[in-house]
């Protein structure tokens, strides 16, 4: 825990040295939610955006954006932190300390995930202020999908971090996942509106399943109705985590073999 605290303390201090990096994301949330509250007025209030449960468009979008921040952060943060340490030249002295690879990965993600959670809270608070309507929230289901969605995305993120260590470039996969997320995972409109081939791609992305489960949790759905998505996320997590750890190990071995830990 001491090491994780060290990383969190470092990241907070670095963030505070650029105050706008803390303030701007929150300002951006206010404008985004405000914008969608106006956009939602041109969408029929009777339109259904979730099969089986009525969800107005504004609530649908805000709930999606709220959790997309957290789950997408899990994909991006570790590789971004490692890339920063590569370019700062601090990756080598970090690896020189008696800190395991897993500790570095978890600790690097700690503050960015806390920050993403804070952003999510602000999204929800702004949403409530601008008038989202939530049903009976199922907290257990919410926790289940937050955990599964974050774990699955973190595994993808760790593979991306291995790519950064080995090839000194962000992984193309995470760029695609990051940029295509809003289009393909049902953040702004239901996946059912996508052409059939893209619906298959959407099904392959963890965020699609996580958002479906989280929307269900926010509207009071029961566990049984979200079982397929929960199983998909659990299966993918179990499959991807060992691959991610192996990829990270091989990437470090490669970097130590070709002496490129301190290069970028």
């Amino acid at each position: 825990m001491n090491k994780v605290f060290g990383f969190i303390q470092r990241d907070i201090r670095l963030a505070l040295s650029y105050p706008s990096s803390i303030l701007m994301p929150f300002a951006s949330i206010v404008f985004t939610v405000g914008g969608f509250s106006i956009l939602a007025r041109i969408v029929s209030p009777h339109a259904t955006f979730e099969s089986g449960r009525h969800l107005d468009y504004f609530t649908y979008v805000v709930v999606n954006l709220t959790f997309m921040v957290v789950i997408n952060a899990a994909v991006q943060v570790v590789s971004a932190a490692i890339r920063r340490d590569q370019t700062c030249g601090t990756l080598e002295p970090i690896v020189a300390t008696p800190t395991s690879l897993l500790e570095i990965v978890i600790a690097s993600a700690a503050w960015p995930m806390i920050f993403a959670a804070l952003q999510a809270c602000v999204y929800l608070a702004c949403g409530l202020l601008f008038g989202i309507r939530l049903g009976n929230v199922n907290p257990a289901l919410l926790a289940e999908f937050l955990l599964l969605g974050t774990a699955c995305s973190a595994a993808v993120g760790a593979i991306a971090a291995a790519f950064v260590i080995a090839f000194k470039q962000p992984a193309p996969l995470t760029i695609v996942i990051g940029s295509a997320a809003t289009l393909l995972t049902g953040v702004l409109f239901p996946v059912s509106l996508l052409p059939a081939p893209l619906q298959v791609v959407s099904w392959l992305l963890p965020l699609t399943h996580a958002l479906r489960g989280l929307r269900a949790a926010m509207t009071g759905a029961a566990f049984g109705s979200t079982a397929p998505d929960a199983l998909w996320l659990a299966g993918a997590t179990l499959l991807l985590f060992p691959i991610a750890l192996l990829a990270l190990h091989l990437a470090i071995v490669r970097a130590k073999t070709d002496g490129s830990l301190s290069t970028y």
Partner: protein
Amino acid sequence: MHGLSKSFESGVWPRRRTRVDVLRGIDLSVAAGEIVGVLGANGAGKTTLLHAIAGLLRPDSGSITYNGQPMEASAARALVGLCSSADRSFYYRLTLRGNLEFFGRLYGLQGARLTRRISELLDLTDLREYENRLYSRCSTGTRQRLGLARALLHDPKVVLLDEPTRAVDPLHALALRAFVQSQLARTARKVILLATNSLEEAWAVCDRIVLLSGGRCIASDTPGGLERSFSKSVRYRIQLERPDGALAQQLRMVGTVQSSPHVPEISIELGTEEHAFHAMLQILATSGTRVQALIPDGTAATDVFAAAVGQ
């Protein structure tokens, strides 16, 4: 270490890549409390050697042991403190104390122990007045001293110093050398490897010097031993209380002497035979003149380096 070898691929395109042997079968053992200097021309493999010991590089072959136990990379990280010559290895937007706090926690220090250790090291490296200054606002020499402080955070048994005084001003360099000799080596009995391009530093600080050339260890001896092996003569500067023409005259019997009637210093060039040195000491002891210092002349080191590496 035994038979340590390391090669790297050079070139970008796969078909044009060639392997460059940086270390070729290096054998080296260092005792506790001993300072071993690693010298060599640029690209001789000094930094590669230190990085391999620190577990930052995987050697192609060979083994590294500490007290007879194989030093795997994970064990090395707890035993070894590496003071790198690169100043791009700290967070520019953190203060010096902030940087040390972060790395201290990674070395397992916390609470009052961490605070106390950082304060000790800030005092030792004379960085106390800069502790709350951003790293980006510090001079290269200050950054280098912070590198030494980081290397010592966890009180390692093996200290690897990669050009620790490269950008440090002469006064701090002297203090740092004295600290390495008296505190780290003699008192704390640490194993110390010092890679340097400063012959003066190596001659002044090291008990033994390893010369690397073309990835091989071409010599390993005391500074005096290297002078005897690679140089035809050894030079000393004898600093006196006052000019002494009679003493200079006497010393001409054992070597080539340069002196001035107005300067309280005699420069003498001796043969590398041991008896020449003893004869000089005998004359100094019986002359009745008060000798303030007997300093090996740095030009001898240059001669040795040129002769050895040029071979």
